[in-house]
């Protein structure tokens, strides 16, 4: 049945697409104006949806007044509303940042990059809203394809050979993922006669068809989310794209397919999923954190460091599954933690990529080793970068901190002490590359920096705004539905001690694994071994990021899921 606020869901999906279509016709300078108008109205709709959800609880809307299984229903529960609101905010932040980069120059009537960027940004937004609200698995397949077709051209917007190769690799690997997802949808229709998620949740039992469908769909979505070891396409794509595009790709596009894994495992087929398969998802997440962070420390360019940081942060998104699915139903606290982690990553990562873009625009390069003195030259941009990094480390009032607390509670509840260690230790890896960049930029330059190119103040404040949003996300617990008791005093000895310990171990990691010694202390034999270890990680990452090994890994994981699901 359609609830009163339900129509807003349909508008949230259609508005960005209407904006894109009007922008396509208007062309030229009007594209950006139409995009900004759409962002304002879209933000209003997102707030309206949140307000309607606070009043009425779950929202639903039957399109064409046909109820499932014949028609398509749009639904929004807590996680969907939170993601809708967060994505609307991040899109507006990215819009403000990109206003300077993607402006139609005075001479020409229409510039390719600006025209394409604003239309594709609206397309990404519309397809993400559809991913969050659609209740129909086939419509979600079309939404995933929309997301990929809007994301791929963003990678090669600059048009250089290397980015074209990264975009092609991304498109082909994402297509492999979506064809596996479609295969799962087909099997579910064959087995249960419907593709509506609510009806499927009631009809599905733990039998071969449902298990095969879940295994195939999950692996397809992991390929599109680039969870380790299926991250073949992410680093070159996100590292090579223009900064405003990398922010869209890293902060927004990968959240769509992750959200679907959450929907499938926690809403549609919790019975089929079982605890042991969830442990595998969590294991892949933990591996992603370790490999992503170590290889991030080895990078020589800031944007590639941030791209590998995304590979690591995606691992965090999947840490929730062992706690969410403990075999006795779904743990809501863990799901809320996952959504919070996704939102805090979206905001912080957007801020970090924007800051990296500003550094590149101002200095003309983003080689980490030559960033000495950058902090003094670009205070707001580097502050945005470091605050984003600190927020991802899970330092108090950040969203990541709140997510970690919720997951720790869930882990204690289900007695999984191993995951408690991973949760506590994970922040150390994030601290590694944040400390590395902090030290490089805060050092005094040997000779004064060359003349900086001017960069727009609005872009800097947009980056800082998003990073601060991620840092302050935990304050929403005070107003939102989450228990406020989780927030303890940030300066209390326990919290402060924890933060300092994480920073200390992070510095140790950065010292050991980074390419060049941190404080130019002469490198002892210990550093020799850590360097060898780090190079081993780098070679391993390069081996996994070859096409045949990534495809074999994809099917290997599908087979493992199938086996674990059958065994559960």
């Amino acid at each position, binding site marked *: 049945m359609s609830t009163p606020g339900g129509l807003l869901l349909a508008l949230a999906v259609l508005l960005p697409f209407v904006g894109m279509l009007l922008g396509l016709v208007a062309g030229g300078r009007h594209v950006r104006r139409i995009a900004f108008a759409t962002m304002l109205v879209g933000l209003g709709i997102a707030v309206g949806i949140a307000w309607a959800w606070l009043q009425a609880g779950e929202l639903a809307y039957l399109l064409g007044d046909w109820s499932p299984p014949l028609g398509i229903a749009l639904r929004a529960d807590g996680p969907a509303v939170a993601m809708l609101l967060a994505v609307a905010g991040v899109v507006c932040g990215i819009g403000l940042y990109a206003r300077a980069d993607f402006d139609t120059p005075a001479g020409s009537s229409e510039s390719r990059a600006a025209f394409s960027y604003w239309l594709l940004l609206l397309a990404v937004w519309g397809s993400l809203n559809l991913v969050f609200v659609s209740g129909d698995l086939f419509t979600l397949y079309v939404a995933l394809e929309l997301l990929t077709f809007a994301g791929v051209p963003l990678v*090669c917007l600059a048009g250089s050979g290397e980015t*074209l190769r990264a975009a092609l*690799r991304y498109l*082909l690997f994402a297509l492999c993922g979506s064809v596996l997802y479609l*295969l799962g949808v087909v099997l579910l229709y*064959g087995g249960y006669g419907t593709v509506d998620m609510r009806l499927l949740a009631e009809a599905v039992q733990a039998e071969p068809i449902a298990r095969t469908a879940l295994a195939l769909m999950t692996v397809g979505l992991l390929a599109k989310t680039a969870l380790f070891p299926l991250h073949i396409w992410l680093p070159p794509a996100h590292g090579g794209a223009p900064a405003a595009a990398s922010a869209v790709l890293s902060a927004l596009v990968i959240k769509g397919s992750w959200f679907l894994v959450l929907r499938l495992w926690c809403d549609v087929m919790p019975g089929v999923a079982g605890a042991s398969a969830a442990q595998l998802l969590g294991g892949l997440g933990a591996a992603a954190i370790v490999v992503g962070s170590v290889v991030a420390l080895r990078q020589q360019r800031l944007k590639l460091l941030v791209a590998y940081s995304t590979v690591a942060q995606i691992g965090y998104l999947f840490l929730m599954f062992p706690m969410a699915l403990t075999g006795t139903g779904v743990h809501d606290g863990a799901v809320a933690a996952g959504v919070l982690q996704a939102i805090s990553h979206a905001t912080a990562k957007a801020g970090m990529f924007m800051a990296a873009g500003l550094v590149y625009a101002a200095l003309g390069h983003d080689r980490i080793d030559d960033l000495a003195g950058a902090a003094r030259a670009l205070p707001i941009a580097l502050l945005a970068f470091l605050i984003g990094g600190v927020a991802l480390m899970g330092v108090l009032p950040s969203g990541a901190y709140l997510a970690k607390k919720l997951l720790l509670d869930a882990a204690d509840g289900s007695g999984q002490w191993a995951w408690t260690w991973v949760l506590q230790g994970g922040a150390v890896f994030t601290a590694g590359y944040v400390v590395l960049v902090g030290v490089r930029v805060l050092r005094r330059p040997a000779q004064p920096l060359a003349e900086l190119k001017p960069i727009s103040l609005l872009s800097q404040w947009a980056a800082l705004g998003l990073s601060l949003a991620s840092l302050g996300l935990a304050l929403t617990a005070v107003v939102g539905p989450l228990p406020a008791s989780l927030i303890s005093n940030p300066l209390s000895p326990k919290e402060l001690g924890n933060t300092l310990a994480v920073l200390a171990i992070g510095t140790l990691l950065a010292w050991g694994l980074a390419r060049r010694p941190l404080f130019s202390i002469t490198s002892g034999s210990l550093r020799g071994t850590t360097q060898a270890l780090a190079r081993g990680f780098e070679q391993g990452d390069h081996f996994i990021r070859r096409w045949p090994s990534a495809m074999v890994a994809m099917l290997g994981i599908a087979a493992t899921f199938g086996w674990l699901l059958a065994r559960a």
Partner: protein
Amino acid sequence: MNVETLYGLGAAALVGIGLYGLIVLAHPLRKIIAFNVMGSGVFVLFGALAKRGAAAGLHADPVPQALLITAIVVAFAASALAVALIVRLIESTDSASLASDPPDGSRD
């Protein structure tokens, strides 16, 4: 062994053939052909399910067939974007290889 099961098994084989091609073939254009073969395997499976669902005077279940038409068009759009990318990649780099260059082993 009715006709639908025959086509269903054929579809499963098509998916396998397409998947093998996707893993092994190195040139991206060949990968797109393998992707289309695998996609059509999924579509034939869906078509076989549709025919199994024939009821109420209809020769086949119209809902999967409608979804199929949508999926075929989406698959064409995917192939069109991929082919355009390949042509541009070859124009600008004279190579269509997907391999990225290894991390430089230079020690600092």
